């Protein structure tokens, strides 16, 4: 059948810069712990990657733990993670060094894509999409973008103006993952006969897009390529529903969440929603529906009213005087939700380890100190050992305000993207952060 040969993978490979990077396929073998940890079909547990993101930063003075190396003690703001301490690496003292031209935008763009924002958008793909291009090919969803705050701006970018918006309705997320057509392990019901018809419709749409493309300039062709990439991913999702479910011990279809979580007294039910979303994402990973995710707990510049706060979050970061006790309480409450999320991954047993052991989650924000939109001493937490590839239980404190993209490059490599460098201009690095790599 006639089909464009330009795959998402080729596109992203181009974005990474030709000679500088080759995207290795298949990527996982090198990072598998071979000591008997494997799925029933003997394939090793894959390494999952995720971003856990919140808006408006932290309070650096209350963030960095006391003590370095393995002997760190949680700081006040990290106290909710105390019981997970051995599974977490805190990276402090590093800075996003790309230009800081867009408050709340330049930080995540610099850390996750290696370049500042340009014309109101990331100018390069974010790390999750680079990793998804490498390891997302075998799962139903190449990547999954979810969120807790009711909003639709995403940080996951496939390219300029190519945002992957988060799904923030728990019910819609459930329907997408586990709704019609999903079959849990052991479910021997027949796949829907309409799946093949849906496939043939997508074939026609692909032909139509191909014809339209010949009439377009370069920018519009690239936009249509993303549309075509989405169609290919949808085809893969349909194929996955048609295939017999994998035998995955930890996978079970979860119960459907409530349809709606309305605000209570003008305040979003962030904790309740976050926990439902956390459990759904954990099960999506356990059922190998995806291996890459971005979870946006809250948006950059969000002005949400947190429980017992007297003003919106963003407003407080700027206006609250002194040590900003309200901002502090909000950050602690957000980290508590991160702890719940990581706990949800830890609860999923996979062989001798847990889903968290087989994952690495980068938890970060859009600034460090919100009051000044600072990108110094950037908040960076890594959770999970990436199948033994990363050390855990460390506090790495940079003495020289190193470039935070060193962490990004390390994560790319750990996930099997053999990148020799990452980022451009002041964001460019050629070396990772060896201190956290096994």
């Amino acid at each position: 059948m006639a089909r464009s040969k330009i795959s998402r993978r080729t596109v992203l490979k181009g974005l990474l810069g030709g000679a500088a990077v080759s995207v290795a396929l298949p990527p996982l073998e090198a990072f598998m712990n071979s000591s008997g940890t494997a799925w029933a079909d003997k394939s090793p547990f894959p390494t999952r990657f995720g971003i856990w993101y919140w808006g408006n930063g932290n309070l650096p003075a209350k963030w960095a733990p006391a003590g370095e190396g393995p002997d760190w003690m949680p700081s006040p703001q990290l106290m909710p993670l105390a019981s997970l301490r051995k599974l977490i690496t805190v990276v402090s003292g590093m800075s996003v060094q790309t230009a800081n031209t867009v408050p709340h935008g330049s930080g995540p763009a610099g850390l996750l894509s290696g370049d500042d924002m340009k014309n109101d958008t990331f100018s390069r793909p974010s790390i999750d999409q680079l990793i998804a291009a490498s390891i997302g090919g075998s799962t139903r969803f190449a990547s999954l973008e979810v969120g807790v705050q009711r909003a639709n701006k995403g940080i996951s970018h496939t390219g300029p103006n190519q945002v992957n918006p988060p799904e923030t309705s728990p019910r819609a997320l459930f329907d997408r993952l586990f709704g019609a057509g999903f079959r849990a392990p052991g479910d021997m019901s027949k796949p829907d006969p309409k799946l093949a018809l849906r496939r043939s419709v997508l074939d026609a749409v692909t032909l139509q897009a191909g014809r339209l493309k010949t009439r377009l300039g370069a920018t519009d062709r690239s936009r249509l390529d993303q549309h075509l990439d989405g169609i290919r991913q949808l085809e893969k999702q349909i194929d996955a529903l048609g295939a017999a479910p994998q035998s995955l011990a930890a996978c079970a279809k979860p119960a459907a969440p409530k349809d709606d979580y309305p605000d209570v007294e003008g305040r979003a039910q962030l904790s309740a929603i976050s926990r439902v979303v956390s459990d759904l994402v954990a099960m999506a990973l356990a059922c190998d529906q995806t291996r890459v995710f971005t979870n946006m707990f809250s948006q950059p510049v969000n002005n949400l009213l947190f429980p017992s706060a007297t003003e919106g979050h963003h407003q407080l970061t700027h206006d609250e005087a002194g040590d900003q006790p309200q901002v502090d309480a909000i950050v602690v409450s957000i980290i508590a939700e991160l702890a719940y999320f990581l706990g949800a991954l830890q609860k999923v047993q996979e062989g001798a380890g847990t889903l968290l052991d087989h994952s690495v989650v980068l938890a970060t924000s859009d600034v460090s100190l919100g009051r000044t939109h600072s990108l110094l001493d950037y908040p960076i937490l890594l959770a999970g050992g990436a199948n033994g590839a990363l050390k855990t239980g460390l506090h790495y404190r940079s003495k020289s305000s190193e470039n935070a993209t060193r962490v990004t490059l390390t994560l790319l490599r750990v996930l099997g993207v053999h990148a020799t460098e990452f980022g451009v201009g002041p964001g460019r690095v050629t070396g990772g952060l060896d201190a956290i790599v096994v």
Partner: protein
Amino acid sequence: MTRFFSADEVGIRHPRRPAGLLGLLALLVGGCVQVPAQDPGPSGPFDPPPPSLRRLTQGQYRSSIHDLLGEDILVSGSLEPDAAIAEFFAVGASATSISPRGVAQYETLAYDVAAQAMAPEHRGALIGCTPTGASDEVCARASLVALGRRLWRRPLTGDEVGELVGIATKAGTTLGDFFSGMQFAIAALLQSPNFLFRAELGHADPEAPPTAKRLFDGYELASRLSYFLWNGPPDDELLAAAESGALDGREGISAEVKRMLGSPRARRGIDAFTSDWLQLHGLDDLVKDTLLFTQISPEIGPAAREEAERDVQRMVLDSDGDFRDLFTARETFVNRRLAALYGVHAPSLDGFGLARFPEDQPRRGLQGQIGLLAMNAHPTSTSPTLRGKFVRTILLCGKIPPPPVDVNTGIPEPSAAARTLRQRLGGHANGACLTCHRQMDPIGFAFEHFDGLGVFRTRENGVAIDATGSLDGTAYSDGNGLASALHDHPDLAPCFVRRLYRYASGHEETFGEEAQIGRFAAGFKNGNYRVRALMTAIATSDAFRRAGQDGE
């Protein structure tokens, strides 16, 4: 270092106006000094950027389904979100693509919509023949030729029809039902980039020299006109005008524009513009502390949005009034909830009716409505800065850069010496903050008579409200004075012309379009600021029919 993206590929591709030495100096000095536009003169050439695909916005997707397949069809579930660029969703639609999740959502919706369209009580309107069996190629072809022309806003090619008939036949045979088969063909039409994107690309003008601009054909122009004026697809008459060649000439275009502005669909078009222009999507999800603002309810935001939309509708389509009066008007449309917030009698038990702001309140114009006041405020307080910024940037086209990094933006706590927010914001009047904040705060102070929700108050923390301020040299004592200053501000009308042109063209205006925008602005002024005439002027202009050559 390898360049990973050409300049064309990093977002908005249209070159911005060269700032010139003066502009550069201004940026170096303070960042907030207005950059004087280079004036290309009244007879400057029209040199527009090349065309772009425009993705249907959420509103356009819905109206396309409703207009073409049936008003009663429910479009439920979420759609790919719109993204604002240059402060307009209409511009974002020319740059964004569709995410993988969006593709999946469009698929789900396509089948949902197609099933409703082919339901027994509904399909008669769309299928003009009686099928002879589960597969009837002749009936499928006739139906898909007609449906396809509407949904894709142009006639389909033979290949395109053939593929769709193939889908209908295969699915009809598999499922044993003609109409079930048609659902799959309709779903293909709806998922196609030919539906989801408006491919208004133009062609080289055969009668012009090679350097001339690309010219839109009749179908492309029909689509441009209908999404501009109706925020929806061309109707059969407009498609017929395209087919007959009537849209190739000024007379035919004028006749269609006149008809379209007289259609009820023009109200939807005005609403869409109003909402995009004033960023009223911010009212869909207001965050307000319900303990402080006890009258707030989830219906307030959408009601306030409707209020502003109705006021603009009335001015443009009913009274054909002076645009500037939108900012001094005391009359407005309210429902019962809004009436209660304004402290006026509800004009009607249900729905909206005309009311008058109380004479003893300094509340006037769109900028004095609950919508803009609540949207440009914080969850528990007002914000003179946000309110002032809105007026400065959206209404007057001023540019305010983000605050510099490493500036302590903390505001002192209320104290005996500084009990009101205005007093506490005094710090903005110093040093580095002053350059930008003096462009915003003095405007915003005029709204301090209205709390974070927009409800009238005379005191804050026991202190009488001080709403004095000035707008570019015109001093005032409260919102009444600001309304007059805004009405008479020399930038107000030109800024509106610029915004409407940006909305209509779907891109941030380029230097090559300045002369044309200047001509529209001069016509707007000479015609006593009639928006309907301005929309007509834009829609019927030669500029609206042309795009630049692609750089390739």
